């Protein structure tokens, strides 16, 4: 049986505690300082970037808490950026291209090779930012702790999900609009929502009266407002006439009503903005 529900902290992360370190501070970056001996490299220290700036210069023991929930590394020999927000740390010298850690940082000078072997700061344990908390649910057979995002049924890192606000089934609308706020006296969402629909007449139509033909790639064309869902006719720009967009109702001259009208219509109104001016951080941030 696989793990299918993950509730709580979603990424692995290395927590940092100590005097002056704010609550919920994590390692966002690490750079080892190493020396070469006999053809091998050995860790002699490590610099860590923090997700939060200390409220006071750290003092006393600094403790790293590893994701397994039991392993720790305690340091009493270190330097830090203190409360600075501009200080930088270069963990080893010898070239201008060596990595630099920007504040806030702590340089643990007593973290040696044995510590590296026992409690390595694995890159997979460092999300690079504050770790996420939330809920993930995976599909049957997929382990929620390791599976790809495509194998999730629900992921709280999403900014929008398919919450169904309204809908209908089996409506014969003909050429008329349907007000999806009427049932239950629903309040307007304040934006034009995403609506997913299916109806009897779908796909391509090619019809004519013997002398003139019209071809429409998709007969199931709809207009959505903040309250209504309306079957439409596509129009083409002719000459210098101002283009007014699709026309309400289905009225292609050469296509019969039977083949174009909105019949047996079912739709879902999702609580997701889908209109110019609403695809912004205000609604998706």
């Amino acid at each position, binding site marked *: 049986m696989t793990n299918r529900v993950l*509730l709580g902290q979603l990424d692995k992360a290395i927590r940092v505690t100590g005097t002056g370190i704010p609550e*919920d501070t994590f390692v966002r970056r690490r750079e080892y300082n190493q020396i070469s001996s006999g053809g091998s490299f050995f860790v002699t220290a490590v610099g860590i970037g923090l997700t939060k700036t200390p409220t006071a210069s750290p003092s006393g023991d600094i403790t790293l808490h590893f994701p397994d929930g039991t392993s720790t590394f305690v340091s009493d020999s270190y330097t830090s950026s203190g409360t600075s927000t501009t200080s930088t740390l270069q963990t080893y010298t010898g070239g201008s291209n060596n990595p630099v850690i920007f504040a806030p940082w702590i340089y643990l000078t007593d973290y040696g090779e044995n510590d590296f072997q026992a409690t390595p700061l694995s890159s997979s344990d460092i999300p690079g930012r*504050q770790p*996420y*908390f*939330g*809920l993930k649910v995976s599909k049957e057979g997929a382990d929620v702790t390791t599976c790809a995002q495509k194998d999730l*049924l*629900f992921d*709280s*890192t*999403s*900014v*929008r*999900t*398919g*919450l*169904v*606000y*309204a*809908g*209908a*089934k*089996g*409506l014969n609308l003909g050429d008329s609009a*349907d007000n*999806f706020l*009427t*049932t*239950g*006296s*629903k*309040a307007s*969402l*304040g934006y034009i929502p995403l609506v*997913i629909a*299916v*109806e*009897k*007449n*779908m*796909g*391509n*139509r*090619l019809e004519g009266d013997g002398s003139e033909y019209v071809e429409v*790639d*998709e*007969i199931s064309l709809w207009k959505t407002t903040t309250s209504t869902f309306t079957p439409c006719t596509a129009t083409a720009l002719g000459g210098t006439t101002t283009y007014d967009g699709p026309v309400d109702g289905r009225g292609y001259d050469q296509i019969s009503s039977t083949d174009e009208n909105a019949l*047996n219509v*079912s739709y*879902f109104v*999702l*609580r997701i903005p889908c209109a110019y001016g609403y695809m912004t951080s205000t*609604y998706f*941030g």
Partner: protein
Amino acid sequence: MVDRVLLGKGTTARGGTSKYGLWISRPGKDVTTCSDDELIFDTDKGGSADIKGMFQLQTVTATAETTTTTVSASTTTNISFTNFNWSFGIIPIMGTAAPTTGINTGQYQGGFTINSFTTSSVNITNLQTTALTVSLSVMPAFSANARF
């Protein structure tokens, strides 16, 4: 860091402390105080204007065990599936592929009608004089009423 997951007793913004459920806000929004629109999972308040469900496709077993089905030219047929036990019935989401090469690139090529559907099949007619490949997904209907 804001509270993103509320499991158990509700808050005023979630319908009151007499409500129990699970609510999840979108990143950066406090689940205890945010608006309903800022929720990505919502245990609704039970009102007629509230959320009706999640738009999640239903797993069914199709006749051909595939997600696409070919319908012969000018033919009416049933696309059958099993393992669906939703008493309000289904709503099929169907479409055809568009060519990716040639002069008709990006244009829909299939014309069809969805004549009827039950909890075990969708009856469709291919209006074209060539075979049509359709893709089918099944959504559960959320109500016995025409609108919900």
